């Protein structure tokens, strides 16, 4: 069987700047899922021979910045941003918020009618946050640690003041007057240390590396002036040389990302909220989730859910193998990979199930 030359579609993200690997990685970093087949096909269609074709709809050009801008502008980006905040505060499962005022946050962020600092503020004022952090000591400690980014053991006095305000006594917490539980949150979120710790966390998430201290200071100053700058910061991070360096290495998938990637790749749909929650909770309950990840992959591939379980009508073995590699790994197979997988496909009477299982349980699939 013949394999497509890997360099033709490219798995070197620094080569042309527009490759299946880049498209997959950017989707995983910004939307926390791979592209759907139709999206991937549309984004990469010009590379299949139509040189000089116009960029896909919605893109200014076939470049990393243009694709990033398109993804960051989507509601999907903000939905995932919101989900990651909930996870950071461990507002999941029994503590997952269901109030309309919270569920509308992604839409409001995408529309520009809300900024991220107010979104975090709204999350911290929710009943879910209160239930997750019951009692004055726990609540104020979490607000100081997770919102204000302060080490409580170094600010014992502030903790005691915050606890008194939580219980309704007036006081000055973190330099701001207050007398309610809500005031405790407001004081913390207005701290510059919130901006710094929030941006450091987000930088780590998108670039998989801690920020430079001086740059962080500058970003925090801009963020304090206007939190709406956050989307532009993410765009700049993705355009940076540091992100280029990130593209030259692979990062392990966390369980949340694995669940979303697996369902999208195998079933060509997003997981339902309940499905996602159950799968994530189960995987998060293991210090080594690998065995359960394999179980999930096998179950999905054996089920009717997967679009990869049945033999493909038409197409050569070569086409099927190349398609599998592009879809699941974001790269074409090397010659020896194409040969081995082609032979296996023939041995399996054309069913790609075992091939897909080999790929999705491999460390390459579970990193990006």
């Amino acid at each position: 069987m013949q394999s497509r030359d890997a360099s033709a579609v490219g798995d070197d993200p620094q080569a042309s700047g527009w490759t299946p690997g880049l498209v997959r990685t950017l989707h995983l970093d910004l939307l926390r899922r791979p592209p759907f087949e139709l999206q991937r096909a549309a984004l990469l269609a010009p590379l299949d021979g139509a040189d000089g074709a116009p960029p896909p709809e919605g893109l200014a050009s076939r470049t990393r910045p243009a694709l990033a801008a398109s993804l960051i502008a989507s509601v999907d980006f903000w939905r995932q941003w919101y989900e990651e905040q909930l996870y950071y505060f461990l507002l999941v499962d029994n503590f997952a918020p269901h109030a309309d005022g919270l569920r509308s946050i992604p839409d409001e962020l995408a529309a520009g009618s809300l900024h991220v600092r107010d979104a975090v503020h709204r999350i911290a004022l929710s009943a879910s946050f209160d239930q997750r952090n019951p009692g004055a000591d726990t609540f104020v400690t979490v607000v100081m640690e997770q919102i204000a980014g302060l080490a409580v053991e170094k600010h014992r006095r502030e903790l005691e003041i915050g606890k008194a305000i939580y219980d309704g006594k007036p006081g000055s917490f973190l330099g701001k007057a207050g007398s309610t539980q809500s005031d405790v949150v407001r004081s913390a979120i207005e701290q510059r240390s919130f901006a710094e710790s929030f941006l450091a966390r987000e930088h780590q998430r998108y670039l998989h590396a801690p920020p430079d201290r001086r740059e962080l200071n500058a970003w925090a100053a801009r963020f304090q002036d206007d939190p709406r700058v956050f989307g532009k910061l993410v765009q700049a991070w993705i355009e940076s040389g540091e992100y280029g360096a990130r593209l030259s290495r692979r990062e392990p998938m966390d369980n949340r990302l694995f669940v979303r990637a697996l369902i999208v790749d195998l079933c060509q749909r997003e997981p339902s909220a309940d499905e996602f929650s159950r799968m994530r909770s189960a995987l998060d309950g293991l210090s080594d989730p690998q065995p359960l990840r394999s179980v999930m992959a096998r179950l999905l591939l054996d089920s009717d859910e997967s679009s990869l379980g049945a033999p493909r009508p038409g197409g050569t073995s070569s086409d099927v193998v190349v398609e599998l590699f592009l879809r699941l790994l974001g790269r074409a197979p090397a010659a020896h990979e194409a040969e081995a997988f082609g032979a296996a496909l023939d041995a399996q009477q054309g069913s790609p199930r075992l091939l897909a299982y080999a790929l999705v349980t491999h460390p390459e699939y579970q990193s990006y």
Partner: protein
Amino acid sequence: MQRSDDMTRALIDRRQLLARAASGGAALAAASLRGPWAAALPSQTPGARKTQRVVVIAFAGGVRTRETFGSSDNVPNLKRLAEQGVLYPRMRSSNLGHFGASLSMFTGIAEQRGIRENQRGEAPTLFEYLRKDLELAASEVWIATSGGAQQTNYSYGLHPQYGSRYGANTLDSDGIFNTEFRSLVGQWGRPKQPSQAEQELLAKLRGAIQSPRLPAAGGRVNSPESAARVESYILEELTRGTAEITGPNAADAKALRTARNLLAVFKPRVVGVVLQQADIAHGSFNGYAEIVRRNDAAIGELVAAINADPELAASTAIFVAPEFGRDKDLNSRRGLDHGDGSDDLNFVSGLAWGPDFRRGLVVEEEVAVIDVCTSVCALLGADAKLARGRKLPKLLA
């Protein structure tokens, strides 16, 4: 307090004795023949002790002595264990948040951790000390938890000489063994076991994949063989009754049930159990007391299962301690917080029960929750070299 029933159950039969002696386990077999609660061996070096496995129960979520050993009837099973073992009623704890305080029991180091911090500590855990020093496989060392993702961080720390390769297998029982996940799995169907030919083909395919720039294999606790056993165990456990457990302490009860099943299936050297639901106390004192009572009953079931298995009964020690207590007085919601700095918060009651321990002893001197790490490691012959606790005094018979 008598242990005659336990002794009777623990006596191994002649065939077991011969089999063990033939396989080089003569010392253990001889010890078992004398019964689990016969007088301790003269030597108390780890190799000569009867204790071959340890269950460490973090009775966590913040539990005061007043609701355990200070109450007349909340914890009959813990009292029975204490009567048959050693009780430490003045065990110093540190209010480091539930996560940090429970972690300190496993690391032997009390250091502040963020309450919701979902990250590993720097120090090694007792699981790492044991796996490294005793060369234990991952399937020999487990933790069953009830508090979700954060508690998988108890498995191992980030110390460069230890870390994931010596970590414990952690199972958050409520996260995995629940009816919703089971029904989700059921909806997809039962996985088909691959044929031998498929397995060989799979190995070939995996071997053919040449991946550029793979990240370091951090976080891998299991070898492929161990992972296969864990995979099989999870599928089996999903069909047992653990997922069906309900009630206000369901997550804690599942953790204890999981520990019980792990002991039966893997006969591991160490099982940690981390409970959490007593923290309902912030909003309800009565609810908290009920959790304490139910968790005591679940511990009773675990102990009964150990005693019903002659091998386990003869060789298993149990440590139980809360990570810290709770405030002295009720809050405005008629609940109990944890932050007043009182003795009710800072001192808890812990116990140790096992074939090598003294019986019916109450040690009044002050000890610490972090002493559990050092004591467990020493008992099994490992060196918790970075831990700051000491061996629990007057423990060994």
